[in-house]
């Protein structure tokens, strides 16, 4: 246990000092950390899922507090919580079915079960009710209210005294953790493989002799374009340099190394060149629940230019970037201000910069991210395929549970 604590503390430190770059790397490290937390967590026999959920939530809150701007951390924590709930649910439905069969065969046990105060409801009803707690609240469940039946299988199984049932119970214990760890492994696999999944779809979207515009440097975009190149499509790429970090230069270098015809332009030239461009492809930092995109600074400008000239604006995002929160005031709350030294040289400007002492009045603002509202985005390409911005809520309902939105 103390080993896990130190691991968590170390990771929190890394997050706070922004030592991990990129949402994919952050997501992977977070999931691996949560996996160790889960495997080291000692679970009681009753209500194991609740114990696991509490442990993961506690760690998750620390991680999110360390770097609130890196939304992938929160996303991944919520994914893990959803996995725990799902596995728990599938185990309880299996257990209920199993109990039902046992009940049918043994009369004494039926009396026992009923004696605990469990009315003669069929397993189907309980399972349906339990399933509804997992789904977000909907019109269907509006009148049903909250069923307490999710905890019933445990009480009935712990109250029973037949040997077969106790054997079931202990295997149930081991099974939940095992299933959850399996699910988490699958999640890690998914996160690592997101680039390939997205790149597979490149051939459908990029056609012969097209001109693609991109901004800054994104590994997903790089893989995407190279995959199209592999399939013998010939096209040109305009790369907006992405001041002040000029990561576009790095991307241009990579693209040329892979044999693509590349042109570097300044961010300010985007509006001038947009009429010659067929498609804008951007990598996202995070995708919000309303379909809005958080991307490197400058993408909002590219999106507006694309809208004006009716150029499709395509956003590539792995599923770990999908955030179930709605952005209110994203320009301020989900943004990070970097060091002004990237923009101005301290030495030259030291006399007019405003250091708070009252001598100068020049302020420098260097935001990292930009918010693009959903009406400017034409298509999202995730590892599950291409989607409309108005479809994001569906993916979110699939990947996350409503109870985990506020951690």
């Amino acid at each position, binding site marked *: 246990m103390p080993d896990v604590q130190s691991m968590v503390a170390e990771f929190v430190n890394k997050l706070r000092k922004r030592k991990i770059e990129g949402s994919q790397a952050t997501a992977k490290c977070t999931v691996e950390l949560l996996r160790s937390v889960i495997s080291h967590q000692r679970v009681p026999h009753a209500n194991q899922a609740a114990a696991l959920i509490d442990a993961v939530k506690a760690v998750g809150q620390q991680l999110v507090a360390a770097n609130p701007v890196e939304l992938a951390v929160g996303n991944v924590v919520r994914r893990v919580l959803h996995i725990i709930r799902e596995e728990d649910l599938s185990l309880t439905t299996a257990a209920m079915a199993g109990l039902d069969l046992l009940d049918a065969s043994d009369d004494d046990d039926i009396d026992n079960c009923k004696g605990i105060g469990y009315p003669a409801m*069929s397993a189907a009803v309980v399972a349906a009710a339990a399933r509804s707690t997992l789904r977000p609240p909907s*019109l269907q469940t*509006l*009148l049903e*209210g909250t069923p307490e039946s999710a905890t019933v299988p445990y009480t009935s199984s712990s109250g029973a005294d037949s040997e077969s049932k106790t054997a079931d119970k202990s295997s149930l214990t081991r099974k939940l953790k095992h299933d959850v760890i399996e699910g988490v492994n699958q999640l890690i696999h998914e996160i690592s493989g997101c680039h390939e999944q997205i790149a597979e779809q490149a051939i459908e979207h990029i056609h012969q002799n097209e001109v693609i515009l991109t901004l800054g440097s994104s590994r997903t975009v790089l893989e995407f374009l190279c995959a199209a190149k592999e399939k013998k499509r010939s096209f040109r790429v305009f790369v907006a340099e992405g001041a002040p970090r000029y990561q576009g230069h790095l991307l241009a270098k990579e693209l040329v190394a892979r044999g693509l015809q590349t042109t570097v332009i300044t961010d300010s030239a985007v509006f001038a060149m947009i009429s010659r461009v067929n498609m804008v492809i951007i990598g996202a930092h995070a995708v919000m629940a309303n379909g809005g995109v958080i991307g490197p600074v400058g993408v909002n400008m590219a999106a507006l230019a694309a809208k004006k000239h009716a150029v499709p604006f395509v956003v590539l995002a792995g599923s770990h970037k999908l955030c179930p929160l*709605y952005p*209110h005031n994203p320009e301020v709350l989900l943004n990070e201000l970097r060091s002004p030294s990237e923009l101005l040289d301290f030495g030259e400007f030291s006399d007019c910069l405003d250091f708070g002492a009252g001598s100068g009045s020049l302020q420098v603002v260097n935001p990292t991210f930009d918010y693009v509202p*959903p009406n400017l985005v034409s298509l999202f390409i995730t590892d599950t395929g291409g989607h409309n911005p108005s479809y994001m809520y*569906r993916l979110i309902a699939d990947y996350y549970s409503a109870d985990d939105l506020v951690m």
Partner: protein
Amino acid sequence: MWRSSASFILDKHLNNKPISITHSIDSPPPPSASMADENPNPNPISAYYETRAAHHGIVTSEWLEQAQAAVQRYPDRENSVSPVSGSPFSVIEEFNSWRQQPDLAEAVAAIRALAAVIRASEATTMMELEIELKKASDTLKAWDTTSISLTAGCDLFMRYVTRTSALEFEDFNSAKSRVLGRAEKFGEISCKARRVIAILSQDFIFDGCTILVHGFSRVVFEILKTSAQNKKLFRVLCTEGRPDKTGVLLAKELAKLDIPVKLLIDSAVAYSMDEVDMVFVGADGVVESGGIINMMGTYQIALVAHSMNKPVYVAAESYKFARLYPLDQKDLEPALRPNDFNVPVPPKVEVERSARDYTPPQYLTLLFTDLGVLTPSVVSDELIQLYL
């Protein structure tokens, strides 16, 4: 073209009766008498909007006269439409008595009325009870065809009853008491829904913002009240809301809570839209496309807000989702209200008396419901889940 609209036929029908509404129209051949028999509500003025106005407390005397006259003229109508076999119980009376309470939502009143039907019923099987409920629900819907929450509430309740009874378990009496219990609880659910919506929308109201509000929605009022309680600094612009003058009442209520409020005439919305940060409206109903049906003027405001890039937020409980898909403004059931212009209207002048309009989903930014924060495209998904 305008001769074939339903509202026109209703007006025409009205013209044949001696009621003192100030308008007159050219006469095409009078409609068949069967219209009068089918519609159990003889007064073409929308009962729903009448009740809303009564809640707001601004009722003209002309209106009261008409309401009195209507009730007196057809006293036996109400009793003759009692749905239950033999007993003098009238679901419509029950519904109307619940509806009069200002704090109760329409759908809650409907569900309480249906619960009363269950209590008064003498059915012995689930099937019989369902049939009685269906009859009562149809009567209620036919009584006031303009109220969407009423229709949606009835449908929701019917759906709940038929779905849960399909699962094989308990005997009839426990099923009946369970359904009754749920119906009673629905009032609490509705109040809880308003609180949930208020909490969800808190993040979207920031310090120093200006909010434009149209119409007196109890949900929106709850949102503003909660924000004020959380010590947020914001100010409210509310439209006058002719002819209900809902804005005046809302302004009074907000001033009581010490929220800076400014009244505008309805035409001043575009003029003030520059200084507005967001628009909050309630909804009488949310339709399948994700658009809303709300008090007349909402569409106008949404159009102006959209053209100036201001977000329009809708606060609506989930039981207002209805299976309607209006394609244009005239696609709705006509809901008419008397328009008081403070001057006598010359006899040859027609008056647009519709009480509500339809706002298409592309002008709405987000919907705050008790199911969570939704984009307009989620509404049809929810409806499909419920009805299919």
